[in-house]
């Protein structure tokens, strides 16, 4: 694919000027790293980093039956969150597999923002529109991805950075909550206490016209520019799924250790509801687990997981050398009978079995603030 066909965010020139290594991600030309993946990873764990995540998509669902639409579309129940609250949810197809994993922001019962993965933007928008139309719900589904840029400011010092830019009141925004407020020249920016790193942090949704001014202002506070490479190692340490690696159309939330974002009872059914009820009744056949390497080697996406006898019992979906924990860690699906925590398994690396242990996710939990 020639670079001419890749999308660019409003911050592209900033990344190039900063010497970032640019790569194709989800059809966007994005910064993989600036000063170094490990440096950037540790900056987020110890101080504060800033990510351009403008490639993510923003779909608004507005109208009289917007709440019903969200209840139809996603696994988590939009009726159980308040105005100004957000929730992580699965957007499923009829078979119970993931169309995408999304964050839903509830402004009011008649206005929601669904943040979708860059690579699934087109697919998700068409899917959501089709489901809403098929159910005859009175609301509009609008893809506003082209209007919005997004910066993720993540780390123990993230609140200090955002307070400098937006005022001390942002400190009162609780985890998975958000507010609409002016950010620079954008009167209706969204400041959300959400993130994909396992640290405290904020995601700022702003119109494209203020993106570069906001990026410059964030860097002036001392936040380190961070790219997609460390974004991946951070989320993996935090046990968070990546669509395309750990979840996809073939895997259900019950398999993916995401039962907590599925509300089956006391609500109208969502697409895929019946499939999950059936899977629960029959017994979930495979489970996404953490893996910690015992022998010296790195488990990676697609590597086979075997039992001690050499029988295939699963597959690795994500893996790396963890910069913070300093171990080789991975996530993978393991057949239920072999998925008990503490089970010793083999990961096949370049044709040879390497021992690993099934462990609880996440690998990393940020220290509680006293």
């Amino acid at each position, binding site marked *: 694919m020639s670079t001419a066909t890749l999308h660019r965010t409003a911050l592209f020139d900033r990344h190039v000027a900063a010497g970032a*290594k640019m790569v194709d991600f989800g059809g966007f030309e994005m910064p*993989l*790293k600036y000063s*170094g*993946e*490990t440096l950037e990873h540790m900056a987020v764990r110890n101080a504060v980093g800033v990510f351009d995540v403008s490639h993510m998509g923003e779909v608004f669902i507005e109208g009289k039956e917007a709440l019903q639409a969200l209840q139809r579309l996603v696994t988590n129940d939009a009726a159980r969150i308040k105005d100004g609250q957000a929730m992580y949810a699965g957007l499923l197809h009829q078979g119970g597999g993931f169309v995408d994993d999304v964050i839903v922001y509830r402004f009011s019962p008649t206005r929601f923002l669904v943040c979708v993965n860059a690579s699934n933007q087109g697919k998700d928008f068409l899917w959501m529109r089709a489901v809403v139309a098929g159910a005859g719900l009175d609301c509009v589904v609008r893809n506003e991805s082209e209007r919005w840029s997004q910066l993720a400011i993540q780390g123990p010092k993230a609140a200090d950075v955002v307070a400098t830019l937006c005022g001390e009141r942002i400190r009162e925004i609780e985890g998975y909550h958000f507010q609409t407020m002016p950010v620079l020249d954008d009167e209706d920016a969204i400041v959300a206490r959400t993130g994909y790193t396992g640290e405290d942090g904020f995601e700022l949704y702003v119109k494209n016209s203020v993106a570069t001014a906001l990026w410059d202002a964030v860097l002036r506070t001392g936040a380190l520019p961070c790219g997609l*490479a460390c974004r*991946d*190692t951070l989320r993996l340490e935090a046990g968070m799924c990546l669509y395309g690696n750990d979840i996809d159309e073939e895997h259900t939330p019950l398999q993916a250790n995401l039962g907590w974002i599925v509300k089956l009872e006391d609500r109208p059914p969502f697409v895929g509801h019946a499939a999950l009820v059936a899977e629960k009744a029959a017994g979930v056949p495979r489970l996404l687990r953490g893996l910690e390497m015992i022998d*010296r*080697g*790195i488990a*990676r996406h697609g590597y086979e997981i075997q039992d001690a006898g050499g029988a295939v019992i699963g597959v690795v979906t994500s893996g*790396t*050398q963890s*910069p913070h924990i300093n171990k*080789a860690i991975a996530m993978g699906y393991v057949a239920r009978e072999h998925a008990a925590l503490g089970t010793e398994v083999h990961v096949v690396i*370049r044709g040879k079995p390497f021992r690993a242990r099934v462990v609880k996710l996440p690998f990393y939990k940020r220290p509680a603030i006293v």
Partner: protein
Amino acid sequence: MSNVPAELKYTAEHEWVRVEGDLVVVGITDHAQDALGDVVFVELPEVGRALHKGKAFGVVESVKAVSDLYAPIDGDVVEVNAAVVAAPEQLNKQPYGAAWMLKVRPKNAADVAGLLDAAGYSTLLASIAK
């Protein structure tokens, strides 16, 4: 701009070779470590292993990817740098110095002579630069 020491020989797979008496020292170039990103793992052969020119003899892993290492010449491994196996991140810092990988006894002197010189490798780098 990548560092290409004038006294070394090179391969198109971004390894360098330094002659040390009747042995050669083998490692990966500054361009290679930069392209890899932060190195987190190195797998090298044992002493005594026979290397075959152009065939993979080991692996270097960065955070995101696995890359094969290719033998620059036919020969036998006489020494493996344990320090770089224990601290693979040194490859990013000292690719030509402390993070050398193997010492090899070449089978054919002609193999070494046939490698790229610094000018040839620099030309190669210029041609693959975007």
